[in-house]
């Protein structure tokens, strides 16, 4: 695919086609600044003027934003002035970005050329922060260019005046499209775009994106599908700007001993600090919040030069985050430790070095993050990768190679989620009555829903109307109703459902979180924390995390170690502590699973001893000892090792398919081993391998044929076993909650109630149990299973693995743990599978043991 796009580009250059109609004032402005419009900017303008929709793929610093707005700006400049008394025009250009901060930033960047050229163009933002009086005014007098987010678009189209508001719409620009399309947000946006096309058939789209694996997916996304009778695959045009200078990437070759496992990179903190000292401003990326906290804390411990080093992640107090961003913009920081919150968008100061701590998990993610350094295209970005353990060294090497090859491993697009569709249908009804046939055609014009069949669509409509239950007892409570049985026209039954919709629209539902408040000290009375006031908000943490804490536990948050005092009125109260070692490791492995592409490369790297020379000595020696003591599997093989240790017997599977697929596989293997009477007692999964342990000698069982590895890994495990396990899994309940919220079965916010959703709604776990018992095929159950299979459980990848290893399993029975198994053995006890062993905990604490009861 990459080749194809390159060819396209070359042809375009050769033909020298771009002679777009560009107003003199623009040429003058470029000239005054000593600039030339870049070829891709002119090309995009030309195509737009021809009436085409276009996807522009370009690296940061290529002038993507200006390119995207050039068609609008030139057209608006040429538009005749509104005569007095003439009606206000609707929005001309809609710009949609994944971050509201980005919308605000773009406004600033856009106003400069508009002011300098004196263009008759108004630009405004509309985000969750926009005050209501301005929203009202925007509806009456829309700006020419409106910068907004997907959630706000959903609200705008679910409005009676939407047709007037969008009557003059010409362009819709999607920024960072690659990051939008992969999620449910992207599904909702895709439906929103279909609705915009319904309101204004002539509109053109412009997609701005970083490099992706399959550009055609995005090209389809930008234009209507299923148009007319033919099944022509509609695609927007494509312009690709090749990356500028290749980045300079190094893997930190540590002088310290490389850890076997863990993700903290504790060993390299000194070297990281020295690297920061050598840079003007460094951006330090980590994968999780806990890694960020840990690294920040440890850097400050050795920060003898008092370098201004800051911390930035999504749980921190917003005010605190804005301060860090402002300080970066003025170049007053030397380093920022950040999670994916800084992956996207905004130009902040002169970052000249990116450090990636821990493995990047995907080649595209790494490329994106490295792109954060140095926003000038012609100068190379500089980056240093800091692997936190031995497997990560190989992963970093694979990512580095991929980066030089320009290989992309962005995840494939999923078909649109049904819960999102349900939400959208209600939104459409809020705007006005709809014809079901017409809406179906509109929905399947959205790329994400192009494959949706009528039957499923109809079930979604019925879900919105009455819950869609087989037991039709809610007709009288219907939210939307058919005007009469024949017509196929649906109407909202009561305006309060419109209000309900507006309060709950959107697809981003985070786990319930609580504010963490820091007090200097806490007075306690018999009942816990006495009423206290004041204190500073440090940010928000998930309830499920805080639930696991008891009074006196210490943990790292917002760059300090704090002591948990208790929960008071929906806030977690903490106090400062002198403790140096937090008792509760806020550790959760990597958030992103290892990409398939990197996994393949790691397998290839391991299988080829010649490639070991490119690895640090500690790693190549480790592999050499593995070759002596056990086996190094070939690229196609699946190595399974068995060995005893202590009282238990272990089975380690080196499958390299990412943590999510491994967790699913671990669960299924355990079930099968149970059935084979091998008495498994637990398992742990990492990105690289799975370890199952039990009370029986698994190696001996395999050797004498009581246990067949081929049978154990047979693809049929994805049948009944999977079904049985999934239905019961806590992960399915978690997914169900999301689906129920998005589809509108339960509300996050209820009109007139200020309390959090929790108090006024029924727990989704209870709903799940009831629905599963009585209507397991309900549309929401279907949506939940589809979600879980692709997301949390990664069943798709697991299926590929099982197919790949058929007949390729090699077993090595060992006397003791192998070098390759050491990392995962160290994870035992550190990583647990949630939802397990709760009964054991209860039993431990219970006083009702027989001995207690019977002794007097």
């Amino acid at each position, binding site marked *: 695919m990459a080749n194809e796009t390159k060819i396209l580009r070359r042809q375009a250059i050769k033909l020298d086609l771009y002679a777009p109609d560009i107003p003199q004032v623009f040429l003058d402005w470029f000239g005054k600044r000593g600039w030339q419009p870049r070829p891709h900017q002119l090309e995009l303008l030309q195509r737009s003027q021809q009436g085409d929709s276009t996807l522009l793929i370009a690296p940061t610093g290529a002038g993507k934003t200006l390119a995207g707005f050039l068609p609008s700006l030139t057209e608006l400049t040429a538009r005749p002035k509104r005569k007095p008394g003439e009606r206000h025009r609707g929005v001309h250009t809609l710009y949609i970005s994944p971050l509201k901060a980005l919308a605000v930033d773009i406004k600033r960047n856009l106003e400069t050329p508009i002011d300098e050229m004196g263009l008759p163009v108004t630009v405004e933002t509309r985000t969750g922060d926009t005050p209501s009086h301005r929203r009202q005014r925007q509806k009456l007098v829309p700006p020419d260019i409106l910068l907004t987010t997907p959630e706000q678009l959903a609200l705008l189209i679910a409005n009676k005046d939407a047709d007037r508001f969008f009557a003059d719409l010409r362009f819709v620009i999607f920024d960072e499209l690659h990051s939008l399309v992969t999620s449910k947000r992207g599904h909702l946006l895709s439906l929103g775009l279909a609705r915009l096309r319904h309101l204004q058939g002539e509109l053109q789209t412009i997609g701005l994106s970083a490099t992706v694996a399959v550009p055609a997916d995005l090209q389809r996304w930008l234009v209507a599908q299923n148009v007319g009778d033919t099944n022509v695959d509609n695609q927007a045009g494509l312009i690709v700007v090749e990356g500028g200078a290749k980045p300079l990437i190094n893997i930190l070759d540590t002088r310290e001993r490389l850890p076997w496992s863990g993700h903290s990179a504790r060993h390299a903190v000194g070297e990281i600090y020295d690297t920061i000292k050598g840079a003007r401003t460094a951006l330090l990326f980590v994968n999780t919040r806990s890694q960020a906290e840990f690294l920040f804390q440890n850097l400050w411990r050795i920060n003898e030069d008092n370098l201004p080093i800051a911390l930035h992640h999504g749980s921190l107090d917003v005010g605190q985050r804005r301060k860090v961003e402002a300080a970066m913009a003025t170049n007053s920081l030397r380093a920022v430790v950040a999670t994916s919150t800084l992956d996207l968008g905004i130009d902040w100061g002169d970052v000249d070095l990116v450090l990636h701590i821990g493995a990047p998990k995907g080649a595209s993610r790494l490329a994106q993050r490295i792109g954060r350094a140095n926003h000038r295209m012609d100068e190379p970005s500089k980056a240093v990768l800091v692997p936190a353990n031995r497997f990560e060294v190989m992963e970093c090497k694979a990512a580095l190679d991929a980066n030089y090859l320009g290989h992309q491993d962005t995840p494939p697009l999923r078909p649109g989620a049904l819960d999102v569709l349900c939400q959208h249908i209600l939104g459409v009804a809020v705007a006005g009555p709809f014809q079901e046939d017409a809406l179906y055609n509109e929905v399947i014009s959205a790329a994400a829903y192009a494959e949706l069949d009528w039957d499923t669509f109809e079930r979604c409509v019925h879900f919105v109307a009455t*819950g869609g*239950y087989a037991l039709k007892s*809610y007709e009288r*409570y219907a939210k939307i109703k058919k005007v009469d049985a024949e017509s196929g026209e649906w109407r909202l039954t009561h305006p309060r459902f419109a209000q309900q919709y507006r309060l709950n629209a959107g697809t981003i539902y985070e786990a319930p979180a609580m504010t963490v408040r820091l007090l200097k000290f806490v007075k306690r009375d018999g009942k816990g924390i006495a009423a206290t006031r004041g204190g500073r908000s440090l940010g928000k943490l998930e309830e499920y995390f805080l639930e696991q804490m008891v009074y006196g536990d210490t943990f790292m948050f917002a760059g300090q170690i704090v002591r948990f005092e208790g929960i008071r009125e929906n806030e977690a109260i903490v106090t400062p502590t002198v403790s140096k070692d937090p008792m509760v490791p806020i550790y959760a492995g990597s958030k992103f699973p290892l990409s398939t592409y990197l996994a393949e490369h790691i397998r290839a790297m391991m299988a080829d001893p010649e490639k070991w020379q490119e690895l640090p000595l500690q790693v190549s020696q480790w592999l050499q000892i593995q070759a002596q003591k056990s086996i190094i599997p070939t690229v196609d093989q699946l190595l399974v090792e068995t060995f005893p240790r202590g009282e238990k017997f272990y089975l380690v599977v080196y499958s390299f398919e990412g943590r999510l697929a491994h967790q699913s596989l671990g669960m299924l293997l355990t079930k099968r081993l149970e059935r084979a009477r091998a008495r498994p007692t637990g398992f742990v999964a990492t990105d690289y391998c799975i370890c199952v342990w039990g009370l029986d000698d698994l190696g001996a069982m395999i050797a004498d044929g009581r246990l067949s590895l081929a049978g154990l890994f047979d693809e049929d495990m994805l049948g009944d076993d999977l079904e049985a396990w999934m239905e019961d899994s806590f992960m399915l309940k978690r997914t169900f909650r999301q689906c129920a919220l998005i589809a509108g*079965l339960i509300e996050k916010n209820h009109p007139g109630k200020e309390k959090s959703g929790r108090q006024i709604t*029924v727990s989704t776990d209870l709903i799940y149990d009831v629905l599963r018992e009585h209507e397991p095929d309900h549309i929401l159950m279907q949506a939940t299973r589809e979600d879980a299979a692709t997301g949390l459980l990664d069943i798709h990848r697991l299926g590929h693995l099982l197919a790949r290893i058929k007949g390729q399993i090699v077993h090595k029975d060992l006397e003791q743990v192998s070098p390759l198994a050491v990392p995962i053995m160290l994870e035992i006890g550190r990583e*647990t599978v949630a939802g397990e*062993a709760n009964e054991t905990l*209860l039993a431990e604490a219970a006083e009702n043991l*027989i001995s207690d009861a019977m002794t007097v």
Partner: protein
Amino acid sequence: MSDSPNSYSWTLKGRNKSKRKSGKSLSASLDDNTLMAQLQTNLPMPDLFTAAAFKGTCIHAVNGEELVTDCAGVAYWPAEQALLVADLHLEKGSSFARRGQLLPPYDTMVTLKRLAGCLEKWQPRRVIALGDSFHDQEASRRLPVDAVQLLTGLLKGREWVWITGNHDPTPPEGLGGQVVDELRCGALTLRHEPQVDADAGEIAGHLHPKARLVRRGRSVRRSCFAVSRSRMIMPSFGAYTGGLNVFDPAFAGLFEERKFHALMRGDGQVYRISAADLS
């Protein structure tokens, strides 16, 4: 406290007395067949009880009256051959539907079927529903036909008492059963809402108690019976009913500070956990 009126012949008399003196709780977990065999040889018991019925239960005495708590969320009172159940909240689903949250309309059937299972197991002569049996005033009129049939079947051949609750202050229509605001029986007083100054022997519902245990960085939350020697707050039984932590201010004054137990509902087992160990 020592000798309850109406004390039932089934109590472990000799053993109990020594236990009471030492201040220890009477409760025992009968999760083992040998233990049951032992108990059965020592005690006269209704024939219908097999070891299986007691498996995983926890016996707790309130004001001297022994109650068998079942992990299904009901309590059996052998002295009265009565089954106690609280907060059924029937038709909670349709009650939400009226306000625009179209929850699955199966909660009543799920709740009643679970209750039917408990009746099958304990074969009680009386059933006492401790209030909030119906989620709202009109709920009994909204019951689906099959739910009415099932419920009628459950009421048949036994005494049934509906204690009124804040959700259902008026008696249900046409379902049978007695409606009372409060019931005194043996050494116990059964009512919906617990009262801070109640005499010893109060059995109530209303609060939907739930307890949380944190151990080794993990947290388990379960609905529970909150119990002391003088009172028991029953867990809520309805399929759509959530819980309230036993340390919530709503429980203030009902139990002595940390000196009570949560009989937490596990998987086939009731676990007796001291409040001192809960979070």
